[in-house]
């Protein structure tokens, strides 16, 4: 708050009372955040009709856990999308970060020659996060520093990182992971899996940071009009760089969770997940053009997707049809949000 403002407002003799009528556009903006809530409720009702098990706490925990890792990827992608960039490489970071940690830590004697046993077990988690940070920093170097197109850069990174993981693993699956790597993905806190707690906590933090801090609002400003953001004194390059690093670290953490849950790192971990991630973010109201969308919206997007998948499973739809229905669900959700939101989803 600038002091000039306070003098400006204080010395104005009688500022007219601010308009008190609630603005319609604001109400709509708020509603857009909650746009998917009716859909979520509808799916819950349909789900409980299809199979009473749907609303049981076991099933709800099952849904939340199955979505927790992808949800963190969606959070990461949302941060990047709001700045007007995109990061396709998140799905490869998701596999590579725990893959590198496993490669450095796992004892080849136990795993038919996979792994180096070069670092003590305790290094596994720091290495996971460090790989994430390095990938994000490299993305930032190419996109921010050299001004390359984010889509192509991260597409290249997606392929290169996947190739790196396939190279170090020989296309096989790392297993016999140390306990430090499996803990977060498999532990249970207060009767609920730790990965659910973590993803919910991260989303809560995301809502606060993006909604209530200057740095969070800087992401929106950059995505909305980067020149105006720079003119307002925002260090746009630095913020973009940080956003890319944070997103990659989140992806690495999500990869750690799923590796812990499955107690393994397959060479294809995360492969193809980025499409679902984009779909969830866009359904949740995050604009691909930047500047628009919310963390809460993104959460409702991923929740809706996974609830529908769960209902389909409970309804006994054969697994071979899951992909077909996934795609259909994405398109239907887009059409519905186009109709209810009134504006083209971009």
């Amino acid at each position: 708050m600038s002091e000039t403002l306070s003098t400006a407002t204080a010395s104005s003799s009688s500022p007219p009372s601010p308009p008190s009528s609630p603005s319609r556009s604001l109400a709509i903006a708020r509603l857009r955040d909650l746009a998917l809530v009716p859909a979520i409720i509808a799916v819950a009702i349909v789900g409980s009709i299809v199979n009473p098990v749907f609303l049981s706490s076991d099933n709800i925990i099952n849904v939340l856990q199955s979505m927790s890792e992808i949800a963190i990827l969606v959070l990461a992608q949302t941060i990047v999308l709001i700045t007007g960039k995109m990061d396709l490489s998140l799905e490869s970071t998701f596999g590579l970060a725990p893959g590198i940690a496993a490669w450095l830590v796992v004892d080849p004697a136990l795993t038919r020659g996979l792994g180096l046993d070069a670092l003590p077990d305790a290094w596994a988690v720091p290495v996971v996060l460090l790989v994430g940070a390095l990938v994000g920093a490299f993305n930032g170097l190419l996109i921010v520093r050299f001004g390359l197109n984010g889509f192509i850069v991260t597409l290249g990174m997606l392929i290169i990182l996947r190739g790196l993981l396939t190279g170090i693993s020989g296309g096989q699956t790392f297993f016999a992971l140390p306990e430090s790597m499996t803990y977060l993905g498999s532990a249970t806190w207060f009767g609920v899996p730790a990965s659910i707690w973590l993803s919910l906590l991260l989303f809560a933090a995301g809502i606060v940071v993006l909604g209530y801090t200057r740095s969070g609002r800087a992401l929106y400003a950059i995505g909305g009009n980067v020149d105006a953001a720079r003119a307002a004194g925002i260090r746009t390059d630095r913020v973009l760089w940080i956003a890319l690093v944070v997103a990659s670290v989140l992806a690495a953490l999500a990869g750690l969770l799923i590796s812990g849950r499955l107690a393994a790192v397959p060479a294809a971990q995360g492969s193809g997940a980025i499409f679902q991630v984009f779909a969830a973010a866009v359904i949740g109201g995050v604009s691909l053009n930047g500047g628009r969308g919310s963390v809460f919206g993104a959460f409702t997007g991923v929740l809706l997707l996974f609830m529908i998948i769960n209902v389909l499973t409970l309804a006994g739809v054969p697994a071979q049809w899951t992909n077909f229905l996934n795609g259909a669900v994405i398109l239907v959700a887009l059409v519905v949000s186009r109709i209810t939101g009134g504006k083209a989803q971009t």
Partner: protein
Amino acid sequence: MSAAPPRPTDGPSGDGRPVVEAVSITKRFGSTVALSDASIVVRRGETHALVGRNGAGKSTLVSILTGLQAADDGAVAFDGRPAPPLADRDAWRQRVACVYQKSTIIPTLTVAENLFLNRHARGPGGLIHWSRLRRAAEQLLAAWSVDVDVRQPASTLSVEQRQFVEIARALSFGARFIILDEPTAQLDAAGINRLFTRIRDLRAHGVTFLFISHHLQEIYELCDRVTVFRDARHIVTAPVAELSRQELVAAMTGEDVTMPEADHPPLPPDAPVLLSVRDLVTSSGAQVSMEARAGEVVGIAGGGGSGKVEVAEAIVGLTRRAGGTVTLDGRVLRPGSVPDALDAGVGLVPQDRHREGLVPLLSIAENVTMTVPDRVGRYGLISSARRDALARGTIADLAIKASGPQVPVSDLSGGNQQKVVMGRALASDPKLLVLITPTAGVDVRSKQTLLGVVEDVRRRGTAVLVVSDELDDLRICDRVLVMFQGRIVGEMAHGWSDNDLVAAMEGVDLHHV
């Protein structure tokens, strides 16, 4: 003004020290000299006009005065003190602000957040205190009598509201010196009036303005003193009252320029009717019937909401008409079909050259020949030699300042870009030429060229429609149809008086009150 805005903190207005003084500024970009030993002094409390043709160095001066660029040579002083270092953005913001033609508002954020971007009100824990920020924004806008709901997204603001919000934001940083870069270019007459009222209000409260405009009329209406730049140099600074219009234009162009009002050869009485519009109804509800004969220049005048642009767009097929017929030389145009209109011989200069007129990254040649692929090639293949030849003709005819037909139009100045749009409209030798606000945002000389072209075109027997609220555009017309609220309310023959036409556009009849 309901609330009294704050007085400037340091002393009464007019205390002698200039708000800003730039002395002997020189700035080069590579081999181009953008400013050469140029100076300007803006006194406290005045509204100072800065005029000059495109390329005279105005924008460079603005970026030096706002601290976006450093001068190669010379000094800038605010209130007699040397300007702060470039890196100290806050210090610059407290001294000077510029409202650019290009918005510095972030459309996806609310008005309130735009006002306090990166300086949000914060509560405990460093978290943004949204309700306090909103109240501060409401108070700020109320203090400067800007009537805008701060909670709406900035994308919903009109150009005019957007400018007011940007001015209020500048004032909230403490700046009492504001540069307005062609603020009227995108406003209609009523909006310009409101902007001027606002500027006069603020001036009464000690705010100093540097006003950049191509419209000399506005300068006489609003400003105290005027500085003219030409070819990167300062030419003259004088009180507006002491500089006649002729002298001002002469200072800008270095020669005497008169608008092509010239002799209007009356139409031959047997000139055939070329364009016939019967009971046209646009989708917005405007209704028009009119005719234009071969070689006739017909003006359609009207204010912002008069429906003149909608009518023109319906005639050329850019929008689908709701009813009525448009006949050109005996051929009925298909509603809402641009290809059909082009085929029938319609040339169009659309309202917004950036949106509808040009593909900025393509060359002049490609832009000019975009509507006439069959004239630059055979069997669907385009001959670049033929295309460039055609474009060279256009460049010569319209005096476009460019090194050749291969130059991308994004490299051209506004006036030259508009000439390219005109060239595209003329490329097909149209029977009907429709010009929508053809001289918006172009400099005096380009304006003269563009309007002079119309004179040539009509001699060849083309009917011309000039859709504008710009008096200079309308002066070349044989007759002007005045639209108000979607209806034609009057027709004025060539030789109308300015007052009558302006009054008619505002819906007032001076002679029957």
